[in-house]
Every structure is written in structure tokens, then in C-alpha cells.
């Protein structure tokens, strides 16, 4: 029994150690600004197309389903309200997080995994560079800066998709749609919508880095690391979403 638990406990310990060192390096020199900018371009700008597509269609589908339900009560005019709350509070951060996890956790894990199995990580250490400072911290900072931005884009595009569907299927006037979208949102929603992707960004980047840096066994090992990174980053996002949702619900109840 103890032997069975030893592996996962060791993995959790290693992950927290990596997280601690990556965060500590934010405040220590040298700072690899070029690497941060490069990763922001790769993680942020590179993810825009998939965020646009998923954002638009998730908003459109939500408006379609919500509008159908609301039609029974003659409340299709409130479609925008539901779309905006669900998108900003939940679906935007989670969908963006999962899409970026799928694209970037896998990319990070395979890149670092390839470097690990070809001894480039060892070479880096031998040549006077801390691989966590050079490889992990820039990816963590870049994801933390870009994921909230991508979530804002996703939310906005989702609302546009919802607006189009509300207009086409339920003849909701555009002005009314955007008016309900705007009025439905309170500061707690915006705070929630931006805090969540910031927290998810650590799961996306650090889980990718963790599995990449512990890859072993050649190309097969890199493939395994990539798969594990995507799976665990996605699971972590849903688990974090649950707990953060609970925390924000508590905060909003205290407010009322």
C-alpha cells in the first residue's frame, strides 16, 4: 500500500518543488526577457485562432440552447444575460484554459521532453544555466500574462457569436442583446473571469514543464509526457474551477 502511494506522493512533492523554484526565480537574476517575449508570442498570439473559433462557437451554441429554453417563457430577450454570465464566469476561463492546455501544455512538455532525452537540459546545467530559470520561469510568466488576455478575447467573441444566434434564431434586437449582456455583469463576475485564467495559467505551464523535465525513455517517453501533461493540466483546470467557483460564491454571499 505504502509503495503504491510513494510514487504519486513523490510526484506531488517534485511538482511543488518545481513550482516553488519557478516562482522564486521571478525575483532572482538573471531574467530572460527575450525568452518571456518569445513564449508570449508562441503561447499568446499563437493561440488566438483556436480561442477565436472555440469562443465564437461556444457563445453561439449557448445562445441557441438558452434561447430555446427561454422561448417557452417568452424571455428570449434575456439570452444575452445568460450568455454573458456563463461565458465570463465559467465557460470562457475554462474553455480557454483547456484549449491552451491542449495546445501549449503539450507543446511545452514535448519541447522540454525532447531537450531532456537528448541531454540538452544536462548540457544547459553544465554550461552554467539553471534550466528552471531559463525554461520554466519564462513559460510560467508568459502564460500568466497571456491566458487572462486570451480569456477576454474568448469571452468577447463568444458574446458576438451568441448575439448573432440570438438575432438570427430568436430575432432579439442587437441593441437589446448587448444591453442585457452589459447589465448582467457585476464586478465579482469580472474579477472571477480574470482571476481564474491567471490561476489556471500556472497549471497549464507548470504541468507541461513538469512532465517535460521528467521525460525519459526516448521518443516514446516524450510522447507519454505530452499526453500526461495535457490530461493532468485539463483535469487541474476543472478541479481548480470547482474550488475557485466555490470561493467566489462565498465572497458574493458575504457581499450580499
Amino acid at each position, binding site marked *: 500500500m505504502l509503495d503504491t502511494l510513494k510514487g504519486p506522493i513523490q510526484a506531488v512533492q517534485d511538482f511543488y518543488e518545481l513550482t516553488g523554484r519557478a516562482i522564486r526565480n521571478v525575483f532572482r537574476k538573471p531574467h530572460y526577457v527575450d525568452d518571456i517575449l518569445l513564449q508570449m508570442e508562441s503561447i499568446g498570439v499563437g493561440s488566438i485562432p483556436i480561442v477565436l473559433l472555440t469562443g465564437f462557437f461556444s457563445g453561439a451554441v449557448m445562445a441557441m440552447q438558452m434561447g430555446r429554453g427561454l422561448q417557452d417563457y417568452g424571455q428570449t430577450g434575456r439570452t444575452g444575460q445568460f450568455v454573458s454570465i456563463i461565458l465570463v464566469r465559467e465557460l470562457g476561463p475554462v474553455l480557454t484554459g483547456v484549449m491552451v492546455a491542449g495546445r501549449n501544455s503539450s507543446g511545452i512538455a514535448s519541447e522540454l521532453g525532447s531537450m531532456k532525452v537528448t541531454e*540538452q537540459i544536462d548540457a544547459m546545467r553544465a554550461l*552554467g544555466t539553471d534550466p528552471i530559470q531559463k525554461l520554466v520561469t519564462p513559460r510560467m510568466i508568459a502564460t500568466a500574462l497571456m491566458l487572462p488576455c486570451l480569456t477576454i478575447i474568448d469571452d468577447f467573441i463568444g458574446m458576438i457569436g451568441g448575439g448573432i444566434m440570438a438575432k438570427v434564431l430568436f430575432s432579439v434586437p442587437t441593441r437589446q442583446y448587448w444591453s442585457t449582456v452589459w447589465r448582467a455583469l457585476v464586478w465579482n463576475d469580472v474579477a472571477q473571469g480574470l482571476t481564474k485564467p491567471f490561476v489556471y495559467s500556472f497549471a497549464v505551464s507548470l504541468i507541461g514543464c513538469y512532465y517535460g523535465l521528467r521525460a525519459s525513455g526516448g521518443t516514446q517517453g516524450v510522447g507519454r509526457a505530452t499526453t500526461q501533461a495535457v490530461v493532468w493540466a485539463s483535469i487541474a483546470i476543472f478541479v481548480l474551477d470547482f474550488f475557485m467557483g466555490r470561493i467566489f460564491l462565498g465572497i458574493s454571499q458575504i457581499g450580499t
Partner: protein
Amino acid sequence: MAESTAPNIPDSAPKKADAKQDAPVSVLRFEGVTVSFDGDAPVLDKLSFNVHRGETRVILGAAGSGKTVLLKTAMGLIHPDSGRTFLFDEDVTDKAEVELFDIRCKIGMLFQESALFDSMTVAQNVAYPLLNQKAIQVQRDQMEPAVRNSLRFVELEQTMDKYPSELSGGMRRRVAIARAVVTNPPLLLYDSPTAGLDPITAHTIMALIVKERDANNTTGLVVTHRYQDGNLVANFRYNPNSGRLDPAGAEGTNTIFMVMKEGRLVFEGNQTDLEACKDSYVMKFVKRPELEAA
């Protein structure tokens, strides 16, 4: 390597010109070093040896005998479970990664698969230690000549703007040598420098290793499973006038052979002792004329 572009290495690095006149100084020392992974059988088992300045150690052994782990432990990339490791007479066993960086700048390492950074050009790869090793201070304007000199040393000056993926295996190995020697480190570790190469390229690589040793009086550890590599290192010297390798003659080359078996050192001595050794495992690594004839 051209002295004009030699980077500044910290004071504790031995002065190369005086290397031969000085009393034997320990460059690398293992005292009962044991390394194991995940509680399995030890990869290095109570290993002890002492490498003096100016020596070349040829480490022979079968695959999985712990040769690569030995080099990585020497470099501080792997921490031993027990025993002590000393670099330049300094105990580095319990040093943190950050503290090791200053010592590592005195060591050059050629990795088994070259380990060139594939997202960087050849020039960027060779310049990497100059840019990133804190203890080495190189002026910006000296960087390019230092890189060019190092690549000229391995006769690959024309590949500066190429990426490692555009080079052959032998060329990658030579670029990795250029990267290892660009800071003029006093200790060089070569991990299977000829593995997977054709005999001609393998000879070129070994000739470069001999050239580096004799041109700069460096201490070296050469891990290999080919006896002819050790034979070349032990019996030939680089002639700077002709640019070729000449027989070392009676003077010799201060080369010591080590044979590893399952993490243990089963032989340590000069080439004559190695060839006279009757141990069946050790004999497998020695090419003997009478055996070849038989």
C-alpha cells in the same frame, strides 16, 4: 585555441603553461562514491580514484557499467548517495546547483549525443558558455573572435550560421567539442566521443581530443568502449608544426586506463599493465596482436 581571445577564468584555474612543472595537483577525486537510482542496484559502487593535473584518463567498460554516470557525477549533474567528490581540491558533494556553476565553468563536457541546442545556430551554441557562465567575463567584441577561433580549432568555421540539424553526426560532435573548449577549461570530460561514428570520423574526433590536450595541457577523462581510442590518446602527441599526430615515443602521454564493470572500478593503471592484465573482463577491451592473429 588562440590565446588572444581566451576568456577570463577564475583564479583557481591552473595556469596551463606551468602545468607540467607543478607538483601533482588533484583535479578530480572520488572517495567511495555510490550512486543509485530509485533504490535499484548501485550504478556507481564505492568508486574511488584521483585524477591529477595534466593526466588523461581513458575509461573503458561495457554499456551500463556506469561510465556516463561517472562523468555526470564528476560534473555535479548527479549527486552521489554516499561518498565525496572533489573538483580542484574543493569538496563539491553537497554544493547547491547555483554554487556549482562557478566550478563548472572550469570543466568542458562533450555529451554522448553532442547535446547541441537545436533551436540555436552553431555560432550561438558555441557562444552559449561565454554568455551564460557568470565566472567567465568576455567582452562583447571578443565574443565573435572567440567563437570563430573555437570553430576553426575543429575546422568548422564555415558552419557558423547553420543549425545542428543541418550537420552530420561527426560535425555535430566537432561543434560540441568547440563549445566544450571555447572557455579554455582546464578539465575536459568526453562521453563516448566516437560512439556511432565511422572509423575515419572517429579518428578525426580523437585527433581533436589529443590536439586539445597537447595544445592547452588540459586534463581529460575520455569515456569509450573502443580500445583504439585509448591507444591513440596514450601513444600519440599533437605536433603543432605539422598539425598532425606523431608517436609520443619514450616521453609518453601521462595516460591512465580505467576499466569499469557494473559500477565498480576493476582496473586502474597504465597501458602496459592493462595489456598484461589477465582478468577475462578487462581482456575483452584490449586489442592484442596475438589474439587478433589467432
